Structure formats: C-alpha cells, structure tokens
C-alpha cells in the first residue's frame, strides 16, 4: 500500500481480555516501530524491529505486552489480560532503514479497556 496501515482503527475490550493490533508497513521498509500515545501525552516508544528481529524491546511496559514481525513485513502487537491503564492509541511507524530519519506513521489503533 501507499502508507502504513493499522487495524483495527478502534477496539473496545473488557478488562482481562487479550487483544491483537496489526501493522502493515510501507513495502520495502525494513525498520518498524510501535509507539503508544495516552490522552494528551507524547508518544512512548514500545519496540523496534529490524527485519523480523527486535533488537530493542526496552519500551514494553510489562510481560503482558509482546510483538512479532513476520516476513519482514506485517507486525502484530499483542496485549494479554488487558488492564484499564492499557487504554491508549497504539501507533506503528516504519522507515526505509534505521537511523535514516523520517518515520512514516499509521493512523493508529485506539484501544479502550472497560
């Protein structure tokens, strides 16, 4: 596709359920990033992928959060046993290769945990 695609755009779930968020980066972009943005806050880094490997997972807030990337393309962020504090917009970004500068962001997945 022409841009970074994320799904679902909105997800409402009950506390304790698992959720999966999907990111389809721009074709050919080897670097992929997940960020989280809580209401009125800046973007919080979660995880970075180079190809299928994740050399930087330092931003994942707990072991309930995990992510994978397959085929050097699509990535899935999984949150297990969701909590209300997980409510946020989850943004995915890609770049041609790491440390080149510009990140291309998707529109985000808004997660609401009731």
């Amino acid at each position, binding site marked *: 596709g022409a841009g*970074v695609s994320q799904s679902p755009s909105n997800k409402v779930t009950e506390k304790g359920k698992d959720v999966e968020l999907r990111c389809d980066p721009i074709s050919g972009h080897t*670097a992929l*990033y997940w*960020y989280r943005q809580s209401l*009125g*806050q*800046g*973007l*919080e*880094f979660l995880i*970075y992928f*180079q190809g299928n490997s994740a*050399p*930087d997972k330092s931003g994942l807030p707990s072991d309930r959060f995990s992510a994978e990337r397959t085929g050097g393309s699509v990535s899935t962020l999984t949150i297990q046993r969701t909590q209300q504090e997980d409510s946020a917009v989850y*943004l995915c*970004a890609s*770049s041609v*290769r*790491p*440390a*080149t*500068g*510009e*990140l*291309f*962001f*998707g*529109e*985000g997945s808004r997660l609401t945990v009731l």
Partner: protein
Amino acid sequence: SQKIEQNSEALNIQEGKTATLTCNYTNYSPAYLQWYRQDPGRGPVFLLLIRENEKEKRKERLKVTFDTTLKQSLFHITASQPADSATYLCALAPSSSNTGKLIFGQGTTLQVKP
C-alpha cells in the same frame, strides 16, 4: 534524568503572524532532531529534520533551529494560516542509539485564529 520538553500550554496566534514553538532537552546527545505535525485522530506527519552539526533548516514557511549548547530547538511557522492549527511534536534520536528510535516531547498545540 533524561527529558525532552515542549510547552504544554496551547499557543494561540493571529493569522499572518509567526508562530514559534520551543523544544528543550536534558541529558541527551542527539544525533538529529525532528519535528512532526499531528492532527486530531491522525498519526504524526514528518515536517523537518535537523542534524547536530546544522544550525538552521528551512522548508517553505517552516524554519527549525538547533542549538546544542542551549540544548534547544526552535520551530517557526511564518505567515501562519488557520490550516496550520495542529499539535507539533519534537523528537530526538539519541546518538547512543543506531536504531532510529525517536524520543518524543509531549507536543504543543497551535491555534491560528483568522
């Protein structure tokens, strides 16, 4: 501790004036610094990148300065228009990281009144 700070108060200016937004950081050595625009409900969009050895960058009505002594970047929009109303995020790439990971400020909301 490491911090990147933007003025959390909204900036309100009159159409045609120059808007100046500030980004300050502490305990980082950025390889480069970027500015993004974010509209409500959308993902951030890249505007400008400035490297540590550059003092100033321009693009159309936009200008960014970078002072590594003051640890500050200024973002200017000249001849502002109501369409410039948005939240502007600064982000830096630590020179200690080669992943392209960006650390974001919390953003400043600009409102341009006609």
